[in-house]
């Protein structure tokens, strides 16, 4: 694999771009692998990369039913933050943040991780107190956090509605300076290329249709490209975990829901941070290409269709104008939906399963993108050692029967309310 650099661009420009290599090989399946990772999204590819990079396990295949990065990693609104409250979440997402900070160089692929800062507006003293609790936890865990008053928010993001007609006047905000965005496709491609560089086979258009068993153990998979044996199988197909889990006989506390994302026409720089509206469901950032990328709430019913409905489009637009009246004439260019694994406590599941040889990584709700590197890192550790990585001990499946749930919002076990 040749290294990417300014020099490589220069050299290839002179040779008419004819000498670039494939970013990853077009691999066909071998009869068996030490580890098969199902799901060529961000988490699956990162898992494969860290299996090779951290654990020296290179006889690995990633099986993707469509094309690499075609699921949620390529559909999300790319927000990366580590502002979690609960013991277990806080440390995991901060570890992920640290991996983001070195990702482009580690992968030799520019994922355009832009630490532009994220703020969430507060609209009452009580809400700001709640944010202060969160900020306190963050600071006490070594994570940057700031509480801003109204004037400070105004200086930072003057285009929000500070007028007298604002329905929910801005009282202040919580701000994490290291939070930001990344180029989502590049994350998938970067991990794919780097994993491929370690010898991992990335097999596209290869759908897993069943599991091969030897007694109680899983020893491989049935696919549209035939049977493939495996020492261990890792499932990383968030959005469709229930469907694949059912094939393996897992009963899971997961529902699939659709979350919409939106992008506007490209504009000259307007939104320099990630901004979330504390009075309703709306968050926005601006892509490097200039489009405002935003989202809102779940559509609110079980769905595997990658599209949402008009009611939520309208609600999100209303919230957008409530927060940023200046974008009233800016036009929506495209909106689409992603299928989320929603868990009863809005926290993910990464763990060995009750089935020997099968490891589970799912339930990412709508927070999976930011977790990509840590998820891959910890899942690789779990698969390689058979034991949960210390950072994911809170993410076991058994937490629902024991009561050790991690419910950041306190919304209770109705998945669509998380």
């Amino acid at each position, binding site marked *: 694999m040749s290294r990417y*650099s300014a020099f490589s661009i220069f050299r290839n420009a002179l040779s008419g771009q004819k000498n670039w290599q494939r970013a990853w090989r077009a691999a066909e399946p071998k009869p068996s692998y030490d580890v098969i990772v199902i799901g060529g999204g961000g988490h699956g590819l990162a898992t494969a990369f860290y299996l090779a990079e951290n654990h020296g396990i290179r006889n690995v295949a990633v099986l993707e039913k469509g094309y690499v990065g075609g699921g949620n990693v390529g559909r999300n609104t790319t927000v990366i933050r580590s502002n979690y409250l609960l013991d277990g979440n*806080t440390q995991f997402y901060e570890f992920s943040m640290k991996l983001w900070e070195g990702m482009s160089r580690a992968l030799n692929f520019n994922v355009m991780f*832009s630490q532009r800062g994220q703020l969430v507006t507060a609209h009452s003293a009580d809400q700001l107190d709640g944010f202060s609790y*969160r900020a306190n936890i963050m600071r*006490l865990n070594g994570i940057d956090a700031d509480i801003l008053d109204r004037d400070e928010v105004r200086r930072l993001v003057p285009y929000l509605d500070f007028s007298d007609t604002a329905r929910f006047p801005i009282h202040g905000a919580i701000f994490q300076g290291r939070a930001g965005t990344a180029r989502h496709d590049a994350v998938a491609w970067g991990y794919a290329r780097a994993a491929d560089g370690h010898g991992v086979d990335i097999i596209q258009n290869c759908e897993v249709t069943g599991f091969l068993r030897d007694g109680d153990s899983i020893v491989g998979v049935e696919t549209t490209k035939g049977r493939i044996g495996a020492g261990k199988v890792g499932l990383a197909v968030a959005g469709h975990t229930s469907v694949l889990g059912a094939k393996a006989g897992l009963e899971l506390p997961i529902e699939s829901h659709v979350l919409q994302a939106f992008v506007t026409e*490209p504009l000259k720089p307007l939104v320099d941070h990630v901004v979330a509206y504390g009075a309703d469901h709306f968050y926005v950032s601006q892509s490097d290409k200039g489009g405002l990328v935003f989202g809102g709430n779940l559509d609110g019913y079980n769905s595997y269709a990658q599209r949402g409905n*008009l009611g939520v489009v309208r609600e999100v637009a209303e919230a957008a*104008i409530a927060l940023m009246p200046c974008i009233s004439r800016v036009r929506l260019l495209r909106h689409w939906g992603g299928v989320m694994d929603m868990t009863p406590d809005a926290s993910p599941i990464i763990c060995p399963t009750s089935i020997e040889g099968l490891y589970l990584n799912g339930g990412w709700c709508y927070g999976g993108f930011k977790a990509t590197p840590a998820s891959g890192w910890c899942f690789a550790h779990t698969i390689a050692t058979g034991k949960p990585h210390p950072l994911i001990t809170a993410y076991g499946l058994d937490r629902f029967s024991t009561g050790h749930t991690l419910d950041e919002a306190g919304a209770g076990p109705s998945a669509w309310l998380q």
Partner: protein
Amino acid sequence: MNSNHKRLSIGGRIDREQPVEFTFDGRSLIGYRGDTLASALLANGVTLVGRSFKYHRPRGIFSAGPEEPNALVTLATAGRRQPNLPATTLELEDGLVAESQNRWPSLAFDVQSINGLLAPFLSAGFYYKTFMGPTRRAWMFYEHFIRKAAGLGRAGSGHDPDRYDISHAFADVAIWGGGPAGLSAACAAATAGARVALIEQDFLLGGQLLAEQSDSAAAAWLRQAEAELESSETVTLMKRTTAFGIYDGNVIGLVEQRDPSNPQLAGEARQTFTMLRARSIVLATGAIERPMVFSNNDRPGVMLASAARSYLNRFAVLPGKKIIVATSNDGAWRAAFDLADAGAEVIVADVRAAPSTALAAEAGRLGVVVRAATRIVDLNGGHAVRRATLNGPDGQPEAACDLVCVSGGWSPTVHLTSHLGVKPQYRDDIGGFVPGAFPADRFGAGSMMGTYSTAGAIEDGHRAGIAAAWFCGKSMPVPAPSKLDLGETATALLREAPSIGRGKAFVDFQMDVTTGDIELAHREGYESVEHLKRYTTLGMGTDQGKTSNFAALASMAALRNATIPETGATTFRPPYTPVAIGALAGCAIGHHFKPIRRTPMHDWHMANGAEMIEVGLWMRPFFYRQSGRDSNEAYIAEMRSVRQAAGLMDISTLGKIDVQGPDAAIFLDRIYANGFAKLPVGRARYGVMLRDDGIVFDDGTTTRLAENRFFMTTSTAKAADVLSRLEFLLDTAWPDLRVAVTSVSDEWAAMSVAGPKSRAILSAAFPVLDVSDAAFAHMGLLESEWQGRALRILRLSYSGERAYEIYVGATAGEQLWSRLLEAGRPFDLKPYGVEALGALRVEKGHVAGPEIDGRTTLDDLGLGRMAGKRTGFVGDVLRRRPAFQAPDRQRLVGLECIEEGKRLRGGAILFLPGEKPYGHGRGRVTSVTFSPERGHYVGLALLAGDVASEGSEVVAVYPMKAETVRARIASPVFLDPQGERLHG
């Protein structure tokens, strides 16, 4: 040059009596009513209109519709700035101010066009391969410049001065597209008896018929169809209306532009967002002509052949004098003939070896030069085309030109059909994608289905209109449509290999994606259609790749040596054309963003100095400004008056539920953790409900009004959730219980009189009632009437003082409030707000929202004794899970600040003395207040049970204010633990 020098003296569908003044880049120009900005610019000889996204290449007007990739302008009227609008869809109106964009300092001289020279280094995806060093944060540096260079146009600032409306509409049959197929479908469906909505994005009906000469048979047919539809009472014609998306349930999103030519509409909404619910849908969205791919095919002066014909016949603009029509099909010849007829010198370069003899004969008659088996390989000219290099049997002749019309065939406009997951299917005979199988309530017609002749489209539309009406049960007889045969010949297509000369050959004009970029993507393995799009940004522009998708797909197919269906088809997402966010928000902006709930005493609060706070849409008094200089002073003063005399609080926002029925007591026993079956009539009880998972859901008091009737109150925030939950259990789990639950939240004005003088005040206010303790004990009920309204008084206390909750019919709320204040004046009764209320309850150790946070159990909140040994209530089983029994489980405690002059804060993290403040600590402070009783801050906290021994110390750490405060663990009840004040 004189104005409108490219305008023909007659013809077209413009109104020469109505000149329209507008400016472009500061230049004043004249067009006519009926022009688009694009046609008016062309009439005035403006060919350079914009700069491209990446390379800043000069661009002109390419199309005559919403597929326009190049001619994007900013409407720059003060306060109404709007970027990226295709000049081809802007209806010209008086005073329109347009600016070109993505250029500096000027359109003609743009510094960033240097990017064109750097192009070899700016290949597709180059940014993924560099900008990674020298430091980890290096990208932040590069990004700053990249962001500045990117983006087309600028957003406005401040509030939008225009209004937007929302509307709900209904139809039997919605017909999408006002061309021949759509018009024919509308006539047929209406005749069959259906209510029809016909949606057309243009300000004129007719679609491609508008590009026919205005004295033609096509024009006559159009007039007749329009007249028929306009006279029909069951047809709604929606012109200037974009159907941007189709959603489940046949809900169609429409945005209608205000008619700028009608001065009476000047004050109306700029756009109206309509949600149209149709029972069946006819899609007649037409087709979009494809460009041809050759070097420098993006030069100003290159235009789709159909667009040139439209400018000529509809707008009476002859956009060139020396014209090359480059085509792969018969259709573009008709443009050549019309242009020649209008006086232009025309060469047709047809890639096919032997165009039909009929066409050749007509060409001969009109003096059109025909070059068969010839294609353009390169174009010359910077700001306007000057010369084309052809490649054909005659070698590589050069030809001078000032306009190049291109036609690479047609792509059916299948975008809308794919919004609901109907996958496009490739048809080899027409070389394009048509929609796949429709569900039963949707129909397609015309060129969108691959029927390219006008006669065929009319037939098709007619059939679809009848079928769509029939689906809605409307089947009145429909006569055959009037025929219109324009003599078009079939448009069979070749698969065109791009012809590349020396310069870049563009596939996606707006995103500056070239054939070279597609080759590079293929070489690097980004060969699925989705990878191609994402890697090269193909189709990501404001035109959504309407003219580029097919050419890109064909290129990739050729590179992969695969068929087009093997290579795939892209999924089109809504909106079909971009939609202003303001339009989608409609009128739900400003104070209409969310409705406000007002209590019956709202006006009194506003008139009497209340500082209001919003709680779940309810407006509530936070404190009263006369109570103190600021909220801190005010709430403490209000607390004191409750503790020392009496206070009056508006509690109308509490959820109130009427529970009735023979099984009401059994029902309450199941939904509350504590028992209600034995509650005597006339008594109230505090109750706590759990969720199924054993976590506390809500709390409130419930009073037994009669054997079969209870009056339940809930928290303000959870009122709707609780009611819905109760209904859920009755409808789905326990339908055998005869119980009715009804929200009566709005029915009652509610106010609490609290304080040692409250009984005296009650007595003064209601002289006829016996409110003595003997007659009216704590937790008792008194029912009566006041001013003809029902009156309920409950003796309940939240503050710890003797207190009464008074409920009266809402219409008398303000009257009773005033009466109480008047009766209370001798006793120093003062109104108090939610800040004081919250402080009073903290002093008394009552839990509320900050403690009932969706993660705490009964035991956590010290309420376990309420359930005692009961079983069989909601949440009982899962509340016994092991995690909730752990010794270090965080439980409610009281905290007293023991450092002089310091304060506790909610959200502080608790550590043991001497412990390093790191991590999540042992717990947190949930609620605090200054306690006038104690003379220092007190608070409630959730603290690990294994360290929560009363009397020992903890340290409350608050990094956001760099504060560390020592506190002593205490009982959460800071005031009157024996409850003597309740009777005081």
